[in-house]
C-alpha cells in the first residue's frame, strides 16, 4: 500500500518501468556484436531513429564477433562484415546496420529496401556504396548522374572491396573475399546447429578453411569470452574470428 504522506513512496509507486517488466528485453546479442566489432557509432549526429524502428539482423552473425575487424589490403573498407544501409543520401538519415554475406553490401541493403525495413515500402532505388569514416561500407540511395559519395565527402567503395559471390569450393585471389566466403560457409553450419560439439566444430572449421584457401590459419580451442572453458554449463562451440591473427577460436558457450 502506498503511504500517501511519503512523497518517496508515491514516487516509487509511479515508477514507469520496473525491472520485472516483461517488456524489458534481455541483453541483445546483436548489439553486443555490433559494439565489439565497432559497427556502432556510425552516425556522426544524434540518432533520428523512428519510433519502433528495429535494427534488423539478416542472420545470427554474433557467433563471428569479437575482434574480427581487419584491414583490407586496399585500405578502404576495414570492416566488411557489416554494412550501414541509409534511407537517404544523408549521413543523418535513418540507418540499419546488417551483416554482409557473399551477396555483397549493396545487395544486403537492397534486401532491406525490398522488405520495407528501409524506405517504408518504396521501390528499391539505385544504391551506391561509400566508405564511412569507421571503415564500414555505407550504402545510400542515388539517382542517375548523382555522385553521392563525393557529395558526402566519402570515398566510393572500390569494386574489388565488396567481393563477388564465391561458390562452395571456389577460391578468390582477394584474401578478403576468401575470409568472407569462409565466414559465411562456417557460420551457416554453426547457426544451424543448436549446440555445436567442439570436436565437430573443429572439423568443420578446418574443412572450410581449406576450401577457402586459408590454409595458413590456425584453430584454437579457447576460453569463452567469460573466461570459462567447455563444461556442462557451456558445452557448445561458438566462433571467434581473429582475422588479423589468422586464427579461429572455438569459444565455450551455453546452450541457446
Amino acid at each position, binding site marked *: 500500500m502506498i503511504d500517501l504522506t511519503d*512523497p518517496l513512496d508515491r514516487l516509487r509507486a509511479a515508477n514507469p518501468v520496473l525491472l520485472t517488466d516483461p517488456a524489458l528485453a534481455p541483453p541483445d546479442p546483436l548489439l553486443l556484436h555490433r559494439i565489439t566489432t565497432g559497427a556502432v557509432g556510425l552516425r556522426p549526429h544524434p540518432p533520428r531513429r523512428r519510433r519502433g524502428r528495429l535494427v534488423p539482423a539478416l542472420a545470427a552473425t554474433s557467433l563471428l564477433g569479437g575482434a574480427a575487424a581487419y584491414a583490407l589490403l586496399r585500405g578502404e573498407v576495414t570492416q566488411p562484415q557489416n554494412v550501414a544501409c541509409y534511407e537517404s543520401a544523408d549521413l543523418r538519415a535513418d540507418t540499419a546496420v546488417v551483416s554482409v554475406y557473399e551477396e555483397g553490401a549493396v545487395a544486403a541493403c537492397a534486401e532491406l529496401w525490398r522488405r520495407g525495413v528501409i524506405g517504408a515500402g518504396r521501390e528499391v532505388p539505385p544504391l551506391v556504396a561509400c566508405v564511412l569514416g569507421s571503415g564500414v561500407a555505407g550504402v545510400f540511395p542515388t539517382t542517375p548522374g548523382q555522385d553521392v559519395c563525393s557529395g558526402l565527402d566519402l570515398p566510393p567503395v572500390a569494386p574489388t572491396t565488396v567481393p563477388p559471390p564465391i561458390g562452395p569450393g571456389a577460391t578468390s585471389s582477394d584474401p578478403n573475399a576468401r575470409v568472407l566466403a569462409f565466414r559465411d560457409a562456417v557460420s551457416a553450419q554453426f547457426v544451424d546447429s543448436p549446440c555445436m560439439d567442439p570436436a565437430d566444430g573443429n572439423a568443420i572449421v578446418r574443412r572450410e578453411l581449406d576450401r577457402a584457401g586459408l590454409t595458413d590459419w590456425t584453430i584454437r580451442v579457447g576460453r569463452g569470452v567469460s573466461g570459462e572453458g567447455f563444461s556442462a554449463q557451456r558445452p557448445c562451440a561458438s566462433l571467434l574470428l581473429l582475422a588479423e591473427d589468422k586464427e579461429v577460436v572455438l569459444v565455450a558457450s551455453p546452450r541457446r
Partner: protein
Amino acid sequence: MDDDHQRHDALGRFEGVYEAHYRAVTAYARRRTPDSGDAQDVVAETFTIAWRRMAEVPDGDAARAWLYGVARRVLANQRRGNRRRDDLSTRLRSQPAGPAELESELIASDERRTVLTALARLRDSDQEILRLAVWEELPHREIALVVGCSESSVAVRLHRARSRLGREIGKEERRVGHEVPEGPDPGGPGPEGPERRAEGLEQ
C-alpha cells in the same frame, strides 16, 4: 600477458558487464525518455562508451553506477540534440511538441500523473537524484558516483528534493482538486534539520 589474452579478457569483462546490467541500463533510459527508439540509442551509446573505456569500468555494483553516469550524459546530449531538432521542426511546421506527448505515454493513472507531473516541475538535478534513489534504488554511495558529488552531499540533496517533491505533489493535488492527504507535512523538516539550513549549507 600478450595482446590476444588482453583482448579476450576485455571481451570477457565487457560481456559480463553487458549481461549483468543491460536490463538496468535499458530501464534507466526508458524511465527518462518516452521514445523507445531514443532509449535504445542511449543503451547502445552507453555500452559503446563502456567498451571503449573498459579499463575505467569498476568491478561489481559500482559498474552499474558508472554506466548510469555515462547514460546520464548520453541522455543530456540527446536532449540537447532533440531540442535543437524540435526547435527547427517547430519553426518549419508550426506544430509545437510538448510534454503532453510524454505524459500520454508514461502516465497511466491520476495518481501517477500527479506524482510525475510534480516530479517534472523540479529542477533536473532534484529529479535525477530522486529517480536514482527511488527508481534505480541506488545507495547514497552509488548516487554520489553517478552525479559526481560526495556521499554526504547526496543525503542533503535527497532530503531537499524529497521536500520539494512533497510540496509539488501538494500543489498538483490542489490544482486538480484532489484532497491533500492528512498527516505530517511531506515537505517538512526531516532528520537532517530544517530545509533552510540544508540549503544554506550549499550556498
